[in-house]
C-alpha cells in the first residue's frame, strides 16, 4: 500500500448558523419567481384590495372628504369584525390562487431532477429542506394577508383612538392567527401535492380540485345522508368556522368571511374543524415525509 503524506487540510473555519441555512432555498426560489412576469403582476394586483380598504378607512374618518363626496359617515361601511373578515376572505382567496401558481413548482422540479441527494448530502436535514421551500410561501402569502391586515388594523386604531384599539384588540390576533392557519394549511397542501405530482399544471389543477371538489363532495354527503358532517371535508367551511371563532363572533348560520362562509343550518363545532384541519395537515406531512428522501427507493 502507498504511504501518504497528509498534506490535505479540510475546512475548519467558521460556518453560518444552522438555523439560517434553509433561507438559501427561499432566496433562490424567490429569485426564480421574480423572473416570471405573471407572478409579479398578480402579486401587485393582490395589493389593490388592501389599498381600497385603507382608503375606505381613511375616508370614513375624514369629514371634509365625506362632505366633498356628499356621503354621510353613518352610511359608510362599519369598520368592525365583519369588515376585517371580508378583507381576510378576499385576500386569502387571492393567496389560494397565487399558491396554486407557485406551490406546485417548489418541490417537484427537485424530485424530477433527482436533486434531493444533493441537498441532503450536506449538513442539511429533510425538515430544513421543507422549511426552506415552505418559507417562500409563508413569506409571500403573509405579505398578502395578515401583514396588510395588521396595517389596516393599525390605521383604524390610529384614526379611531385608543378606546377602539382596546375594545377590538382581538381582531389583530384574529387577523394574524386566521391568516396563519390558512397559510400553513395551503403551504403544506401545495408542497405535498408538489412532491407527489411532478407535472406542475396537474399539481395546480389538483389543488383547485381538492378545494372545490371536496366542498362539492361534502355537500353531496350532506344531501344524501341528511347530515352536516360532510362539511368536515369542506375546506372553506372548516376555515370559515375557525376564523369566526378567532374573531370572537358567534358561530351562526351564514357567518364567516366571503368565500369562506358557513353553510346555513350546517354548523359544526369549532373544535371539530380544528381537528379536521390538523388531520389534513398531518396527512400532508406524512406525504412529504414519504417523498422527501435522500434516495428514492423503487421496489
Amino acid at each position, binding site marked *: 500500500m502507498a504511504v501518504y*503524506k497528509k498534506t490535505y487540510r479540510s*475546512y475548519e473555519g467558521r460556518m453560518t448558523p*444552522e438555523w439560517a441555512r434553509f433561507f438559501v432555498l427561499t432566496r433562490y426560489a424567490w429569485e426564480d419567481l421574480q423572473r416570471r412576469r405573471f407572478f409579479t403582476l398578480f402579486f401587485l394586483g393582490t395589493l389593490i384590495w388592501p389599498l381600497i380598504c385603507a382608503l375606505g378607512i381613511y375616508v370614513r374618518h375624514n369629514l371634509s372628504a365625506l362632505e366633498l363626496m356628499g356621503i354621510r359617515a353613518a352610511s359608510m361601511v362599519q369598520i368592525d369584525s365583519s369588515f376585517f373578515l371580508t378583507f381576510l376572505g378576499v385576500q386569502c382567496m387571492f393567496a389560494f390562487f397565487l399558491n396554486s401558481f407557485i406551490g406546485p413548482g417548489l418541490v417537484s422540479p427537485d424530485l424530477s431532477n433527482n436533486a434531493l441527494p444533493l441537498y441532503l448530502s*450536506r449538513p442539511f436535514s429533510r425538515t430544513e429542506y421543507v422549511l426552506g421551500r415552505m418559507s417562500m410561501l409563508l413569506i409571500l402569502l403573509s405579505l398578502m394577508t395578515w401583514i396588510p391586515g395588521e396595517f389596516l388594523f393599525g390605521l383604524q386604531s390610529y384614526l379611531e383612538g385608543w378606546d377602539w384599539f382596546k375594545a377590538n384588540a382581538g381582531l389583530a390576533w384574529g387577523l394574524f392567527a386566521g391568516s396563519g392557519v390558512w397559510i400553513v394549511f395551503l403551504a403544506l397542501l401545495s408542497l405535498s401535492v408538489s412532491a407527489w405530482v411532478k407535472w406542475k399544471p396537474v399539481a395546480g389543477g389538483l389543488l383547485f380540485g381538492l378545494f372545490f371538489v371536496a366542498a362539492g363532495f361534502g355537500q353531496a354527503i350532506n344531501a344524501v345522508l341528511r347530515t352536516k358532517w360532510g362539511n368536515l371535508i369542506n375546506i372553506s367551511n372548516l376555515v370559515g368556522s375557525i376564523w369566526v371563532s378567532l374573531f370572537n363572533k358567534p358561530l351562526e348560520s351564514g357567518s364567516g368571511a366571503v368565500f369562506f362562509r358557513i353553510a346555513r343550518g350546517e354548523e359544526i363545532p369549532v373544535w371539530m374543524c380544528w381537528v379536521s384541519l390538523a388531520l389534513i395537515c398531518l396527512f400532508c406531512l406524512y406525504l412529504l415525509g414519504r417523498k422527501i428522501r435522500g434516495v428514492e427507493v423503487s421496489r
Partner: protein
Amino acid sequence: MNADLIVFDNVSRFYGDVLGVNNVNLSVPPGITSLVGPNGAGKTTLMNLMTGLIRPTRGSISVLGVRPNQPEELFRLVGYCTQFDNFPKGMTGFDFVKSFLLIHGFDERDADRRAWESIDRVNMRDAANRRLAAYSKGMRQRMKLAQALSHSPRVLVLDEPLNGLDPMARAETIALFEALGAQGVHVIVSSHILHEVDRISDQVILLSQGYVVAEGAIESVRGEVKDHPIQIVLRCDNPRAVAARLFEDDNIVEVGIHKDRQGLLIRTLNVDAMYLMLNRIILEVGIEVESVAPADEDVNSVYQYLIGAEGATV
C-alpha cells in the same frame, strides 16, 4: 472508531425483499479506492450508505470516526457526486456550486471564492455562467465534481465520475483524483471503465450481487485467486530453452511461445517458485532478458476470474 478509515461492520441493506448489499465488512484507507462490479452489484447502495442517504438494515458504518446518523459532522467530511444528473432547475453552473456552499454553511464571500476555485479545478470557468441545462453530459459531470470538491471534504464519494467525459477531460479528472489521493484524501470511485480503474486505484473493492467478492490492492487480490493460474510474460532472446526448462516445475500449467519467437507466456500455480526457477534458468542457460511482467495482474482479469459471466453487461 478509527479516525482515518471508512469502516463497514457487517453491514446489510435490504429494500423490502430485495437485497442491496449483504454482510459487508470493509476498512477503506486513504487514497483512491475503486468500487467495481456489474450493474446492480450494490456499488451505489454502498455509496449511499457511506453518505448516510440510506441507513443500513443491519450493521454499522463509520466514516473517519463519524457515524452517518450525525449529518452535521459527516457532511463536513464528505463530498458526494451522484451517478445521475441531479440539478435544481434553472441554475447556472456557478450558482449551482455556490448555492450548495451556502447551504453547507459558508458565508457569501467564502462561498464565492471557493466556488470559483473549485470550478477552476475542473476547468469550467468559461462555461460557469451558462445555464446547466445547456451543458453537455461531460460538462455537467465536471460541474457535479466541482460541487463535490468545493467544501474541501476529506472523503470524496464519486459515483461513475468518468462517464461522459472526453479523453482530455478524463485525463485531467484522473490527474485530479491522483493528486487528491496522494494528499491523503479518501477518493471512492465507482466505475465501469476497468483499465482506468486499474491505472488510478490504490485498492479495489469488487462487488457482485450485493456481496463483496474481493478487496485490497489489486496485486494481492490477484494473488488470492488460486483457481486461475497467474500469467507471466517473459521477453527474451531464447524462449524455447526457457520453456523446456520451465516444464520441470510441477506448478507450471502452460507455457506458450510468442509468434515472433522473442517471448513466452507462462501460466503457473506458484508464482514465487516460478520466479526462483526463472532466475536459475537465466543464469544457467545464459539468456538475455528484455522484460518480465505479470499479464493478468489487473482489475479486468480479476474481474473476469471472480465475477465472470455475471459481469457480461459491463
